[in-house]
């Protein structure tokens, strides 16, 4: 895109990232409908629109748009209305810097992996704002559970990513994926598992959906939300799956490396990311929800030590091979 004037290039890139941000989460949502329907024998998602229930997602969207936008009388009006966007926008920023191939990237930033981790950490503030501003005890409980969970799982995630960055000797996602070699699959395996578990917890997806646990606290921080604002929170969740899956593909699966990577690199990254997203959905279908103390125990007793061991292992490997 070097032929374009700078301002036009910026506009084209922004529009492309926005398009990806609007399309990919819906794709994951549709996949979740279908995968869950098949795995659990659900009939509902297979009905709308005739063939294989293709219109289920459209019907969902129409339903959300039609609903009334309610702000509870005792809520903190501004914080309540702003919260869905605070939850959503960090993922948009993260998606902008995740490369699909060395050339297909929204914005090629130097320390892109730090940027992704930093903005993902900001997303939790949307949940906190929603929970506090709703003036509802279930919302508040959900927000506090979310905050406790995200603070605990951020540490193992950062450590796991630090290990990959150390192995590649770079903080740029493009350089990390380019430094990747197939034997890293084994070398970085503990870190990859820690990353996947911590990512699931950051997304608050089952089995880590204690902050939303609908049988205990209605729907956590999102209890009072309706219509489009609620849909934005859902969109943030699916955008989160997209970001985490692509990040996993770039960090641990080599991103665009594969046959014909000169031309089809971006497709490989998307395919690998899609596979990870299916695993994320699969885990939701097959695991029961964890209790709050089990959640914290898993983070501090298992994930942090494993991530530290991985960091040491990586350091030894780097010193030996250099």
């Amino acid at each position, binding site marked *: 895109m070097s032929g374009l004037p700078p301002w036009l290039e910026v506009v084209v890139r922004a529009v492309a990232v926005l398009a990806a941000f609007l399309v990919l989460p819906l794709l994951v949502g549709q996949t979740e409908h279908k995968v869950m329907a098949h795995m659990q024998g659900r009939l509902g998602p297979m009905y709308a629109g005739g063939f294989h229930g293709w219109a289920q997602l459209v019907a969902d969207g129409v339903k959300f748009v039609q609903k009334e936008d*309610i702000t*509870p009388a005792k809520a*903190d009006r501004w914080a309540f209305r702003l919260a869905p966007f605070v939850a959503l926008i960090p993922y948009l920023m993260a998606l902008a810097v995740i490369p699909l191939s060395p050339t297909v990237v929204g914005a090629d*930033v130097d320390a892109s992996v730090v940027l992704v981790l*930093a903005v993902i*950490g900001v997303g939790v503030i949307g949940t906190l704002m929603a929970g506090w501003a709703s003036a509802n005890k279930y919302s508040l*409980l959900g927000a506090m559970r979310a905050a406790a969970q995200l603070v605990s799982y951020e540490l193992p995630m950062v450590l796991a990513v630090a290990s990959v960055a150390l192995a590649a000797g770079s903080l740029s996602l493009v350089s990390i994926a380019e430094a990747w070699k197939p034997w890293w699959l084994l070398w970085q395996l503990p870190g990859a598992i820690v990353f996947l578990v911590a990512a699931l917890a950051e997304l608050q997806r089952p089995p880590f959906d204690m902050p939303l646990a609908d049988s205990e606290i209605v*729907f956590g921080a999102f209890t009072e939300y309706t219509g489009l604002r609620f849909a934005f929170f859902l969109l943030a969740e699916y955008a989160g799956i997209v970001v985490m899956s692509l990040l996993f593909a770039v960090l641990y699966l080599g991103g665009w490396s594969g046959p014909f990577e000169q031309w089809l690199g971006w497709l490989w990254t998307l395919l690998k990311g899609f596979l990870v997203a299916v695993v994320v959905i699969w885990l939701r279908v097959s695991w029961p929800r964890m209790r709050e103390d089990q959640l914290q125990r898993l983070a501090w007793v298992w994930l942090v030590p494993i991530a530290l061991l991985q960091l040491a292992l990586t350091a030894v490997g780097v010193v030996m091979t250099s």
Partner: protein
Amino acid sequence: MTTRDIVFVAVGAVTALSALLSVTTKHVVHAALWLLVSLGSLAGAYLVLGQELVGLVQLLVYVGAIVVLVLFALMLTRAPIGPHAEIDTPRWQRVAGAVLGGATTALLASLLLPLFAGATADLDRPSTTTPQIAQAIFGTWVWPFELLSVLLLVALVGAFAVSRIVLQRDGADRHDADHPDHPDHHDSHDDGDRTAATTAVTSEPGTGRVG
């Protein structure tokens, strides 16, 4: 005036304004949210000045962790929605705070402004500063850095030890309380605080989603 100057002035103004709002607002949680805006836009100021890593670490540490902890701690209290007379400060305290804050600002400004008045940053030739920062921290300043990490570790172990002592004392008290009408003055921190926080902000139920 270049575009960068304008952006820097805008980001700086947002930082200063939200910092002021964060200390003047009467809503406790709004103060934390304005602090968030202030720290976030400070990260933006670092980015405009070309210090990418510093800006990102600012975002990661202050916005992503510290303010989240502040908000979390606030929610464990009776942080009410709207202004609250009980937790308001008296007028003399506000005046004293303003004078102290103004004096600190003047002192820092008189010290730092002459020191960095002539400092310039070349932003037109983009250079990666991350390796330089890494070399400075892990080369020149490695001993202070390691000492700091030891200090943090000691604080961490100390916090664990203190919580252990409290837990053990709690356990001992429970053990002594054989007869049922023994007053339970050590209600578990979690439950006690949470119920306090949640009863403070109850609202009418039934406004949730349907379907």
